[in-house]
Each structure stands twice: as structure tokens, then as C-alpha cells.
């Protein structure tokens, strides 16, 4: 599983996000190394389809996908905590849930 953390140094949230991501990977029983990808220009942001910092991708997919039409640029992402408050980083429980879903997808036909 390829795990990437795309970041821009205009937002100070990437160290906290990296720590939370590593905790979630460990809790999900994964030993994947996080690849840090620094985004340094708007042109690179468009090329990388980077909606803001921090962005977490697993096997190329943004695990917190943005709505259609969101511009790609050097900016900071606004996440929502489970209680609705805005946050520079994903809710830790949401992050762990997303990682677990990617790590252990439901078996086809399995129910209950």
C-alpha cells in the first residue's frame, strides 16, 4: 500500500498530520512508510491535483476526497472534526477509519 502525505510549507499542519497518520497506520496493523511530497508551486499543485495541505493519498486516492470543482493550489485544507468544528487536520477517528477501510476492505458478498 502506497501512502503519501502531500504538504505545503505555508501550512504548519503537516508534522501533526504525519504523526497522526503514522499512529493510524500502526493501529491498523500496517507498516507502510509514509512518503512525504512537498508541493512548492501552483503549477505543481495543479499537476499533482493537490487541493491543499495536508492531503493524504493511499495508492493514489485522496482518502478525504474534495467536492468536484475544488481548485488545485497552494492553500491550506479545512477539515471538519466529528463535532463539526473546522480543523487544519483530519479528525483522528475519521483518519483511522479511512485507513482501516483501505487496509481491510469488506469481502465481496460478506454481510452481517
Amino acid at each position, binding site marked *: 500500500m502506497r501512502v503519501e502525505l502531500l504538504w505545503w510549507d*505555508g*501550512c*504548519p*499542519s503537516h508534522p501533526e498530520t504525519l504523526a497522526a497518520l503514522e499512529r493510524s497506520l500502526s493501529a491498523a496493523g500496517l507498516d507502510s512508510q509514509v512518503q512525504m511530497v512537498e508541493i512548492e508551486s*501552483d503549477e505543481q499543485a495543479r499537476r499533482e491535483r493537490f487541493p491543499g495541505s495536508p492531503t493524504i493519498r493511499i495508492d493514489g486516492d485522496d482518502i478525504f476526497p474534495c467536492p468536484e470543482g475544488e481548485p488545485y*493550489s*497552494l*492553500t*491550506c*485544507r*479545512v*477539515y471538519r472534526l466529528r463535532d463539526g*468544528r*473546522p*480543523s*487544519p487536520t483530519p479528525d483522528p477517528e475519521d483518519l483511522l477509519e479511512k485507513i482501516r477501510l483501505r487496509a481491510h476492505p469488506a469481502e465481496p458478498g460478506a454481510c452481517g
Partner: protein
Amino acid sequence: MQIGDEASGFSLPATDGTEHGPDGVTVVVFTCNHCPYALAWHDRLTQVARDYDGRARLLAVNPNNAETHPRDSFDAMKERVDADGGWPHPYLRDESQEVARAYGARTTPDVFVLDADGVLRYRGAPDADHRDERQGASWLRDALDAVLAGDEPARPETEPVGCSVKWKR
């Protein structure tokens, strides 16, 4: 601008069509619409404006380049205040970014407390943790209480935390 320096005066347009600048004890907060740190601290800052009404005024100033960050345009600022049903303090547009440059603003938010003579008495973050609402902008409140009592803030400077100001090139 350093602690103890006299701050530049200014007059900037607000979302409601009025103009405002420092007058008496004033909190100048550089902030914006798009930054999650500014959003996380917003309610705590508006509560400060309510709690110190009549003793100090709070001016929120958005200096960001709206060409690269359209969510910080003057129109978007007006829409946000309208959507909230009004704010207890003005929301000012620093289109030229001259005020932000004069103050040396680095992030959104970046808080400056001026005494009644316009001298800078506090600069930095509202409190120690954007995630913890219970902090209640305590660093800013401590500084305001000291200034209003005619004292020096015990903690005159902290590290501002937030998104970088989006400068025009």
C-alpha cells in the same frame, strides 16, 4: 514592528460599508476566510470582542491576495459575515496589504494589541492551542487585561500560529 513601537494608524473598509482604524485600546487580528487555523480560533476572538465591548475594540483584517485565494475576496468576506448574521466587530479588507506589511503580519491569525496611545503591547497567537476551545483566547485576554489596567502584559509576545499571509507577488 516590535513590542513598544507605535503602530501605524490606518483606515480600512469594512464589509458593512463603514471604515475603521485603531482608536483607544485596540486588538488588530489579521485573519481570513480560508485558513483552518483562523476558522478554529474565530469564535474565541468574537467572544473577546463581546466581552470587552466598551473597553477595547477588535478589528479583524483580511490581507490575503484574493487572486490566488478567491475565498478571501471582499465579496466573500461580506457573504461570510451576512451568513453569520453579522459579527460583533468589523471585518476589514486590506486590499493593498500595506497594513499587514506595516505590522509585519505573518500568519492568519496574527494578533496585535495596541494600548490607548497606539503602542504595541502584545503580539502573537490568541492562546496556546487552536484545537482547545477551553483556552478561550487566554493569552489575548491576559494581555488586554494588563493593558486596560495600565500594566505591561506578563507575556508580551508569543509565536503566531496559522496559515501564512498570502502576499501579492
